[in-house]
Structure formats: C-alpha cells, structure tokens
C-alpha cells in the first residue's frame, strides 16, 4: 500500500518549514554548519535519485559537484559574472558533463558502472589539478570580494551574510526536494524503479532502459552540480579537493547511512556525518577515520535495510 501523496507532501513541507524556523534559534556557528548541511543534502538528494531509485552506484559523482563548483566559480573569478549567471553556468556545466558521462557509462551496469564512473571521476579530478594555472589546484580560488550581491526587486542580498546564505541554501534544497518527489512519482520515476527491481521484465514490457537511466543521470548530475554551484557562490571558494575521490564517497555514505530511497534519510545522514567529521577534526588530523568506521558499520550493521534498493539482480555478479 503506497503512502498517500498528500501525507508525503505534508511531511516534506513540514520538514522544510522546521528547517526554516531553525535559523531563528541557531547560534552563528551552527547556522553556518547547517547551511553546509543543507547544500550537501541537496547533493545527496541528487545522488539518491541515481542510487536509491535507479539502483546505480556511481563512485564518481564528485565530478558533477565539481563541474557546478568550477562552472560557477571560474566565471565569477575571471569574468566578474553575477551570481545568477554564474549559478546557471555551473548548472549547465554539470548537465553537459552528466549527458556525456551518462551516454558512455550507462552502457555498463552493476560493479562495472561503479568502476567506470570512478575512472571518469578521477579524470575530472586530475584535470582540475593539471589546469593548475587556471584553477590553482588544491589551493583553490577565493571568490570573496568579486561577488556582487543578489538583487530581488529593491532588496539587496549580500551572499556573505549568514542568514542570506542559509535561506538561499534552504530554497535550493526545497526546490530540489519537491522536483525529485514529483519526478519519482511520475511515470518516468515508476519505470526507473521498475528497471531497478527487475530489468528483464521491464524490458519485456517494452521499456528501453537506456533513455530512462540517462535522464536519471542527467537530473542527478544536474542537482549535484547545482549544489556545487551554490557551494561556490555561498562559501566563496572553489578548489580541487571537492573533485577528489572523497567527495564521491561521501554522498554514497550519506545516502546509505540515512537510508536510500527516502527523503529524510539523506538529511539525517549528512547532518550526522558533517558534525561527526567536524568534531573528529578537532581531536585528530586523521579525522577521516570516522568516515571509514561509519562506512564499515553501515555495510555490516544495516545490510538489508540499505541493500533493499541495492540488492536488485544487477548487484549480483553471475
């Protein structure tokens, strides 16, 4: 028995409203932390569309986040582009990359898909390193001071103001959340889930898997890129660390920890991990040990819960 549409919508709008109210009680440090959480949740929602609903485990999603990041950051840094234009440019960059990578990598499924996306992700990371003269590689570019405020009518919203950041991040998450909610309940989403559950049977019903998965990849990459573009603009920083393997692994961890195929899940996963990493980094320089430990525990402790989505037949090798 599927949950009625109206109660799902109520739940999501309730969560978004609660997040909206949260900003009035949070101290400044946590306001910035939760802003980050909101952006990463947007990224996780994009990743979840492919993993949770499409059953495809990408290990290279950082390339889409980074495409958005650089697509938005470079025009600001070098051409003095305004925030709106920069955001669109970041979105376009990630959509183009997703269209290309999707067209190639979706000729494979299962473990091969994971390895191919990992390789493409590595290529993109190395490109950001080797274009050192433009991107400054690991050191990155700081956009502060080059970024014009957002203008809405008579309002002028400086992007470095904490509350402006928070509300723009929330606005992005809300948009993305509602679009994906609508998408996975649309006929397109149902075919995508059917393909995840039983590819053979869905094919027999006359559905060609490729266009559905490609579109899922496009939307997933686009959302990840939007998160990246927003990150560049709101935190005024663009660097190749965001293209590295770690940022491909994190969305996987967030989504699996929270629960694939749920909306609240990624939010909880991101919030938990962001704070865990933050606290661990005060204690030790080897703070990524938290990431490793959680991944192992998630794999051992929640094998069926997570695997529900993953355990379709294409996760088995013959």
């Amino acid at each position, binding site marked *: 028995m599927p949950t009625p549409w109206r109660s799902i919508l109520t739940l999501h709008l309730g969560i978004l409203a609660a997040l909206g109210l949260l900003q009035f009680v949070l101290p400044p440090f946590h306001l910035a932390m939760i802003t980050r959480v909101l952006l990463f949740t947007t990224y996780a929602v994009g990743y979840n569309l492919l993993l949770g609903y499409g059953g495809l485990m990408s290990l290279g999603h950082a390339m889409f986040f980074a495409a958005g990041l650089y697509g938005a950051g470079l025009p600001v840094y070098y051409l003095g582009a305004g925030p709106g234009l920069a955001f669109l440019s970041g979105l376009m960059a990630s959509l183009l990359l997703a269209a290309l990578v999707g067209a190639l990598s979706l000729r494979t499924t*299962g473990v091969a898909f994971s390895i*191919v996306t990992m390789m493409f992700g590595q290529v993109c990371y190395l490109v950001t390193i080797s274009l050192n003269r433009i991107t400054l590689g690991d050191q990155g570019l700081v956009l502060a001071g080059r970024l014009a405020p957002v203008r809405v009518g008579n309002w002028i919203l400086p992007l470095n103001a904490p509350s402006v950041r928070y509300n723009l991040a929330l606005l992005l998450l809300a948009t993305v959340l509602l679009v994906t909610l609508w998408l996975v309940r649309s006929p397109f989403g149902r075919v995508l889930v059917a393909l995840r559950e039983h590819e053979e049977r869905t094919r027999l019903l006359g559905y060609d898997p490729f266009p559905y998965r490609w579109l899922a990849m496009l939307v997933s990459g686009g959302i990840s890129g939007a998160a990246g573009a927003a990150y560049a603009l709101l935190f005024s920083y663009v660097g190749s660390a965001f293209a590295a393997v770690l940022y491909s692994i994190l969305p996987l961890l967030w989504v699996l920890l929270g629960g694939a195929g749920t909306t609240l899940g990624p939010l909880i996963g991101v919030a938990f991990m962001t704070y865990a990493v933050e606290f661990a980094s005060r204690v030790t320089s080897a703070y990524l040990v938290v990431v*490793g430990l959680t991944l192992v525990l998630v*794999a051992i402790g929640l094998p069926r819960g997570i695997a529900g989505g993953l355990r379709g037949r294409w996760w*088995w090798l013959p």
Partner: protein
Amino acid sequence: MTFVSQLVLALLEGTVSGFILALMSLGLSLVFGVMRIVNVAHGEFFMLGAVLAWWITTATGSFLAAVIVAPLAVMGMAIAIERVVLRPIRYSPGATIVATLGLLYLLQQMTLMLYGPEARAVTPPLGGTIELPWFGYARYKLVLAAVAAVLLLATWGLVRATTLGLRMRATQQDPEIAQAFGVPIHRVYRAAFALGAGLAAMAGVLVVPVQQAHYLMGLDGLLLSFMVVILGGLGSIGGTVIASFLVGWIDGIASIFFTPTVARIAASLVVALVLVVRGGGLFGES
C-alpha cells in the same frame, strides 16, 4: 641524455614497475575471480606492506626480516578482515564495495595516526649500479624484478598445481557446485583473500627502497591495478602480467613526453572506455 637512452631508461623503469604492478594486480584479480568481490581496500594492503617494511627495517636493521614478516602480518590482518567484515555481509557485491571503501579510509587514517604524514624510504639492501652502455642502473631494481618474477611464477604454480589452487579454480567456476563436491568454500575464500593481500603487501615491501612509504600511496596503486585488471581480463594470470607491463611501459614512455598528470588522465580515460566498449563483460555481467 639522448633520446635513445631516455627510451631505454623508460622501458627499464616501466619493466620494474610492471613487475610491482603485476604482483599487486594479481592479488586483486585473484580475489575478484574466486570471491567475485571488488576489494576497494586492496591498495591499502600495498601501503601497509610498504609502511611495515620501513618500520621493521628501521627496528631490526634487516630488510630481509621485512620481506618475510610484513606480508605475513598483512595476511593475518586480511584473514581477520575476511572474518569480521566480509563474511557477515556474505560477499554481496554492493555491500562489499561500501565495506571495503570504509576499510580503505580506516586503514589509511590509522596509518596516518600511528606512522604520521611523512614519506620515508629505506636504503636498498644492496647498493651499486650495473653499467649499461647509456647509463648506470641500480642493482637493487634488477633484484626486485627477479624476486617479483619468482613470486609470480610461484603464484601461478599454486593456482595450477596444488589442491588449494584446484579448489580455488573450482570455486571460481561455480561456488555452489564446488561446495556440493565438498570444497570448503569459506576456507577457500579466506585463503584467496589472504593470498591477494599478501601479494599486494609484498609489492609494497619491495617498492620501499626505490619509492618512499606514505600513508596515501594506496589509492594510486589501487587505480593502477584496476587499470591492469580491466585491460588484462579477470582471472587470467597471463593477461594480468602482460597488461602490467603494458601499463608500466606506457606510463614510462608517456612520462617522457607529458607530465605524469596528463599521462594519468589519458590512461584513466582509455581504461574507462575499454570497460564501456566491452560492456562490462569483464566484471561478469554477461
């Protein structure tokens, strides 16, 4: 340096790194073939071998002790990991990737805590160079290649000519039927996983005198051995060895003309496209 001598040097260096790569990739290929899992933490066994080798050599003053003890220690750790992590998740391919990704970060970060962020080298157990017509070449690197060749042959013999090898091949073909015929497949899995880890660790030990031990060296090794295994075909020892030399030579020659990063970009693209064109058949879908 003339172009010819540059080329000869690149080919020699490529051959030596091809041997190292072959040891490591053979381990990865063996684990995939027998257990049908992709061990993303394989590079960390390589790194642990190198770090332990530095530690043992520094503590005892004997590199030979490191050659013997470090791989055994890593094999012991692999057996524990197989029991505590892989068996509970029943070697499910998706969950294994997640779990071994976790192990990758666990092992890497623990090494950072205990060993530190420095890169450290060991003086080669035998110094000196062999004079070639173009340049002198480090004698240790030739010994390294010989030792690796012996180990590759030994592994091949193990898989081809022993009961354990027979059981491994039977499990690789069909685990259920193998089990029905009395093959203790859990013990075979444990042996394959330990052997794969041991080979990676041995590669790490052998490399310390020519390349420094560093806690982040595993990822590069992992990506390179993915390339080898994908190009060479899984489960094929000959294919793995040939692909290792190809990757070694291409890497060596490409780095004459390009920066290492550009060479790596090209190599990663080629490997991704090979997988795409072969439709993932290599990883067993078809």
